[in-house]
């Protein structure tokens, strides 16, 4: 175990790169070697993930474990600092799970123009970037991995994508690059202004807490990060790259994009932006909350207008990430726990939805909703799976999606000190309204694709079959996890909660309010409720 | 001697090299300009090595020379190939990267 404690994360980060390098040595005609190599590499990372899960000390989930710190680029004080705590563990494990499944799914499903070697190598490079982003504890390191992710994804869309792939990939690339440029500027500004001579997150956080950065500067820096991370999330109104990228990307790309890449943005908020700049977070939170709520409603309306299944799912991501952002905007334990849960749940569910959409496309050669129909007749199991994940996606309790939504709504009722309460209660109602719209578009999708009789065009088409072996292998873990996390949400909440408390509540309570915002019972609490209700302009008689 | 005089010399060489790369049509001349750039880099390396009083700069300068040799070899091979295929080594006609 000691070996893993020292080397585990480093191994995890670089194993995919090594795998890619080995693959380079084989000619591209040996497809099976490449598949085995790529799968083997990701399985190795998955095994390390299992070891991590076993070795992880859940009682100390608030501390960095398997932590490593080495000098890296002395001249700019960047360190190679990695580690895992309760906040990043679920996301890391999600990554380690999804990528092997994507490769298994790809086994016989390589999109045009085929070329498994290049495709799998890109996935492996992507894997390194994603793992690195979740374990980095140094801003420069984080930034490097954050950017590493960009290029493979760009090529995946640009080479293996749909008809309009060039436009979509360029838009994706430029948009996110624009975001990361702002992010980098924010990081640099933070580095120079804080004067802490370090890029480590904790170090910067301390430096800011000690008053190293003026309040105005903090707000501006947070604004930069908001744009940078917000584009990645994507947050309304920076989401327009997403539907195009998703629609044009190959299935595997869509799955990884939805399951992991979008989380980099939200993860950035909870790991970097808020802990370092809590004061600015409080200032910005009404804005984030408003954008989140607009995103929820707007994404749902966008879904209702879609005629393409994949595009609909892409828009639903905007709505779902809205809940995550709303949770983050509350700056409370509940909200941020909900956000992390929401990230994992969205990863599993939307990843699954894209898988199914990809398989539907492969069978029907179209995703035009009006032409589909009767999936439950033609391929009953596939139809049931679609029904199951639609339910999960609309936030049905008992499935994973609910635990991302409800606690976020709950937290919005009572946000952190300093955040306008009345406004957030309004957000809460809007978000609750969003659940209805979510049910609307997902069930409508389900009705039009799965229910009814198949159209003449596709009736008795032998191509339309139930999931094959690879699909079952790739999907089963996701489906099982959606159910398990739905029934036992403690599996994630119990891990994230101590870390969230350590990272966010603590810095908020020291910087912003006198005491922890979320759960204090007592007179002030109740006065707060009454006052806020009164704020809403409704006076209620005593009934006497 | 001042460090800067070497660095400025290198900068001038570098910029001349860049100018050459950007303006020359003939493939061989472009490669020559690249050599100018590489040499500018080498001067910098060696000057900094002397400035820091160690041999790292020298070592890397040697590596750069080796790499430059490889680069010229491959580059000229490509120019030859291009010449054979198109009967011209005019870089402005090379626009296969066009999107």
């Amino acid at each position: 175990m000691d070996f893993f404690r020292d080397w585990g994360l480093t191994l995890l980060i670089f194993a995919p790169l090594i795998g890619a390098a080995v693959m380079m040595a084989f000619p591209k005609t040996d497809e099976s070697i490449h598949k085995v190599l790529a799968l083997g590499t990701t399985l190795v990372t998955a095994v390390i993930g299992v070891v991590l899960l076993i070795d992880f000390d859940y009682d100390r989930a608030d501390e960095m474990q398997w932590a490593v710190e080495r000098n890296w680029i002395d001249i700019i004080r960047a360190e190679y600092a990695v580690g895992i705590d309760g906040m990043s563990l679920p996301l890391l494990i999600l990554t380690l799970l999804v990528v092997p499944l994507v490769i298994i799914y790809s086994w016989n499903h390589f999109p045009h123009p085929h070329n498994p070697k290049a495709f799998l190598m890109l996935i492996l490079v992507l894997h390194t970037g994603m793992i690195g982003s979740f374990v980095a504890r140094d801003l420069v390191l984080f930034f490097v991995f954050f950017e590493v992710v960009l290029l493979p994804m760009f090529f995946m869309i640009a080479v293996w994508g749909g008809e309009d792939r060039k436009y979509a990939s360029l838009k994706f690339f430029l948009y996110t690059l624009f975001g990361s440029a702002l992010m980098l500027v924010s990081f640099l500004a933070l580095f120079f202004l804080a004067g802490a001579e370090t890029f480590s997150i904790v170090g910067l956080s301390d430096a800011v807490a000690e008053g190293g950065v003026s309040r105005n500067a903090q707000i501006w820096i947070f604004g930069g990060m908001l744009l940078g991370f917000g584009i990645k999330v994507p947050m309304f109104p920076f989401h327009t790259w997403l539907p195009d990228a998703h629609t044009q990307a190959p299935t595997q790309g869509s799955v990884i994009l939805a399951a992991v890449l979008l989380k980099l943005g939200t993860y950035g908020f909870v790991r970097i932006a808020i802990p370092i700049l809590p004061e600015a977070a409080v200032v910005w939170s009404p804005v984030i909350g408003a954008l989140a709520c607009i995103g929820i409603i707007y994404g749902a309306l966008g879904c209702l207008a879609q005629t393409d299944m994949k595009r609909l799912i892409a828009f639903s991501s905007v709505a779902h990430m809205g809940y995550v952002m709303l949770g983050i905007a509350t700056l409370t334990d509940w909200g941020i726990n909900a956000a992390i849960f929401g990230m994992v749940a969205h990863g599993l569910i939307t990843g699954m939805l894209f898988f199914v959409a990809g398989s539907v496309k492969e069978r029907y050669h179209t995703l035009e909703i009006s032409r589909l129909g009767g999936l439950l007749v033609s391929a009953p199991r596939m139809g049931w799976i679609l029904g199951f994940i639609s339910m999960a996606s609309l936030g049905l309790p008992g499935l994973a999606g609910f635990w991302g939504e409800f606690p976020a709504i709950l937290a919005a009722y009572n946000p952190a000190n300093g955040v306008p309460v009345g406004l957030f209660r309004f957000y809460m109602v809007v978000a609750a309204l969003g659940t209805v719209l979510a049910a609307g578009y997902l069930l409508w999708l389900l009705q039009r694709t799965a229910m009814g009789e198949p159209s003449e065009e596709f009736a008795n088409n032998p191509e339309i079959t139930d999931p094959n072996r690879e699909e079952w292998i790739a999907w089963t873990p996701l489906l099982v996890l959606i159910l398990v996390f739905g029934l036992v949400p403690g599996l994630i909440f119990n891990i994230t909660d101590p870390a969230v408390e350590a990272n966010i509540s603590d810095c908020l309570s020291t910087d912003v309010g006198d005491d922890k915002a979320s759960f204090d019972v007592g007179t002030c609490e109740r006065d707060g409720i009454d006052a806020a209700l009164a704020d809403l302009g409704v006076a209620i008689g005593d009934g006497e | 001697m001042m460090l800067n005089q070497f660095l400025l010399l290198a900068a001038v060489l570098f910029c001349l090299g860049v100018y050459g790369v950007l303006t020359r049509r003939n493939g061989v001349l472009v490669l020559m300009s690249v050599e100018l750039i590489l040499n500018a880099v080498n001067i910098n390396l060696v000057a900094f090595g002397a400035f820091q009083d160690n041999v790292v700069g020298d070592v890397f300068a040697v590596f750069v020379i080796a790499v430059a040799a490889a680069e010229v070899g491959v580059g000229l091979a490509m120019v030859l190939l291009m010449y054979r295929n198109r009967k011209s080594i005019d870089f402005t006609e090379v626009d296969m990267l066009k999107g």
Partner: protein
Amino acid sequence: MSVLAQVANELTSSEVDIAQNIAFGIIAAAMIFSAFKTVTTANVVHAALYLVIVLAGVAAIFILLGSDFVGATQVLVYIGAIVVLFLFGIMLTKAQLGDDETVETERRSMGALVGVLLLVVMGYALVDTFENAELEFSDPEPIAFSEIDVKVSDVPTPVVDALPDVFGDRGGDDIVTITGADFATLVPEVQRRVPGAEVFGNNKQIADSIFSQYIVPFEAVSVLLLAALIGAIVVARKE
């Protein structure tokens, strides 16, 4: 013993400095002129020949900076091999001998603009950053010394001053013996003025570095060279 070190033996440091600066000025002027001609001349062969001057100048600069080994390598590899390759390239592509106005593109102004901009930015940055940085050459470490008999008249004054025991009471003898023990008592600056002391440049250190600390890059470069060799053959051969 390098030429420069020998010159240096004779001169005081400020004298050396002036000499070096003069040398530098001449070399630099030649280099810049030649480089300019390389990138502007219309004659391809001339360009190659101007390039030779630049490369030689670079080698001279290396020597001026005390890196004899790199300088030697520069001459061997660049002037000896690469330029020849270029000439072959020129001939094989049947370039027009003599002036050829088509070698220049129409984007000269753009290139000039970029180049000048780059120069301004870099120049400003350099001047700003290294305004007062001076080069001080540490003395190369002497690596070996065996007992030697020298003529007193040949020995520079600092050595005589530093070894009063040897030179002080010699009884009019014209030849004295400097032992290894005597030599070891001297500070390095004086040591290298002792006639016959085997004072080298930094070649030994370079060798040490390459084969210990930088062994991996070294191996990588060797593989790269091999790859380039094979690659060049593959690319250039006729189908």
